[in-house]
């Protein structure tokens, strides 16, 4: 990726917001990002907007919240990887020289989606009839069979993410006291062995990033560290025997391996260079698998690393520093941009109580519907 920086970031806290519209949440996140960048909406030359569940034309309509300036607006959708995919297109728009300043806005009200899908889909066929947790739970069952993984390992990941989320003002779940492995295990069983606290909540929210040419950041905010987007990769699945064509959701493990190799190659960096990593931890088993699939540890070593605390803040590489999908939340469209928000603040040294000391390089990984993997690497210039 050539000369693209994150100029500004902003969020509307994830949570249950029945009285707020996508426009309300998107406006708050977008204005926060503009203020963070020191820019006016007049400076924004294009917008890429990510949402999954909102009606047709919600991109252009929501962008009117900022004023009507005639800018080109595109809707990008890739299931859970929607915000990441929109971010990637915005980066390309800058890297290609087409635009200097581009807004990426993600929003969604997953609470509304749950209501409409219960009414509209053919309810009785396979992926429509099975709770997503069920698909991910089977990943856990297989892992337990092959590697002797214990529910305690999954609970330790969830507890770490809850406790990170408690330090993030934008996190949906804000635990009032330290969350323990025992508490996670004792929460309601959703799909064995996954409990409610090992699973992300449904919620609403918005997140925004402004991307542009790095010299703009240096000119507007001299002295503040510039965060550059050094690599972007997005892949879909390659066929392998045993591929699940119905009810994918999880996606083949190889997709995260292949996509991370591509992004490491473009960045000229390896997993050992990462100071912090955000992953698609919709369920705790995912984060455990991604440690290995992204190369943060070797195959079969995830459980030992969890027991050592390798992926906590202060560990070898901090993972899901903002609480991850499990605590920070996962409304859909904005989720990938919440990862960019967190990584940008961390690399600037502005992450407050959850700051990873000396963070210089961070990675953001999202999966979309089990069929898309999107990964970005950001670095402090």
């Amino acid at each position, binding site marked *: 990726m050539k000369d693209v920086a994150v100029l500004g970031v902003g969020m509307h806290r994830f949570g249950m917001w029945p009285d707020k519209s996508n426009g309300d949440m998107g406006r708050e996140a977008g204005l926060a990002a503009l203020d963070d960048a020191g820019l006016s909406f007049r400076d924004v030359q294009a917008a890429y907007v990510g949402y999954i569940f909102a009606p047709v034309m919600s991109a252009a309509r929501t962008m009117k919240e900022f004023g009507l300036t005639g800018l080109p607006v595109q809707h990008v959708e890739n299931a859970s990887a929607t915000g990441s995919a929109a971010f990637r297109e915005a980066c390309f728009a800058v890297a290609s020289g087409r635009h200097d300043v581009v807004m990426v806005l993600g929003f969604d009200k997953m609470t509304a989606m749950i209501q409409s899908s219960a009414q509209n889909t053919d*309810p009785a066929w396979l992926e429509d009839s*099975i709770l997503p947790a069920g698909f991910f739970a089977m990943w856990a069952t*297989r892992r337990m*069979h092959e590697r002797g993984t214990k529910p305690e390992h999954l609970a330790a990941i969830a507890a770490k993410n809850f406790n990170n989320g408690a330090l993030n003002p934008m996190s949906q779940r804000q635990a009032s006291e330290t969350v323990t492995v025992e508490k996670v295990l004792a929460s309601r069983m959703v799909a064995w062995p996954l409990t409610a606290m090992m699973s992300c909540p449904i919620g609403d929210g918005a997140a925004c990033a402004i991307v542009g040419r790095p010299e703009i950041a240096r000119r507007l905010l001299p002295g503040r560290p510039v965060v550059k987007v050094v690599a972007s990769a997005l892949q879909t699945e390659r066929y392998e025997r045993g591929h699940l064509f119905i009810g994918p959701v999880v996606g083949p493990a190889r997709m995260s391996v292949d996509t991370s190799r591509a992004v490491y190659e473009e960045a000229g960096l390896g997993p050992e260079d990462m100071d912090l990593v955000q992953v698609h931890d919709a369920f705790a088993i995912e984060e455990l698998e991604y440690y290995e699939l992204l190369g943060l540890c070797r195959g079969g070593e995830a459980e030992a690393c969890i027991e050592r605390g390798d992926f906590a803040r202060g560990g070898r590489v901090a993972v899901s520093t903002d609480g991850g999908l499990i605590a920070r939340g996962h409304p859909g469209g904005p989720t990938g941009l919440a990862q960019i928000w967190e990584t940008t603040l961390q690399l600037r040294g502005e992450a407050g109580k959850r700051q990873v000391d000396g963070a210089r390089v961070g990675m953001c990984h999202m999966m979309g519907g089990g069929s898309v993997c999107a990964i970005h690497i950001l670095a402090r210039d």
Partner: protein
Amino acid sequence: MAEASRPRVPVKEGYFTVPSDPATPPRLLGSRCDDCGEHFFPRRAVCAKCLSRRTTDVELGPRGTLYSYTFVHFPLFGSMRVEHVGYGVGQVDLPEGPRVQLPLAGKQEDYRVGMTLEAELEPLREENGRDVVIIRFRPVEAR
């Protein structure tokens, strides 16, 4: 049993057979590539492996090997039956090659990775005097 005597219709056409004899297990409707021989479920027009446009409809199963499974502690969407308030889901490797994800009968303790399962039809609800059925798996030894 009264349910078995009613005519049965699949919840969705084109995915599994509904044998007229209730004792005959259903089979999954898939495709075989005419060029590379790879099998797929569900049916597809283009081979996902070699990209050939020549595929033939085939029936798969009814037996397979359990790759992984879970039990979900929520109602099965679309079912009107109280016994479906929780349900199993399994990934089953068919002898022809495809892996399928389908509901499981019974309870969690009935299952272990690697066991042989067989497909069966399960009524979800009654519509116009007919049973609307889905396909699911159960352990062979429990039959």
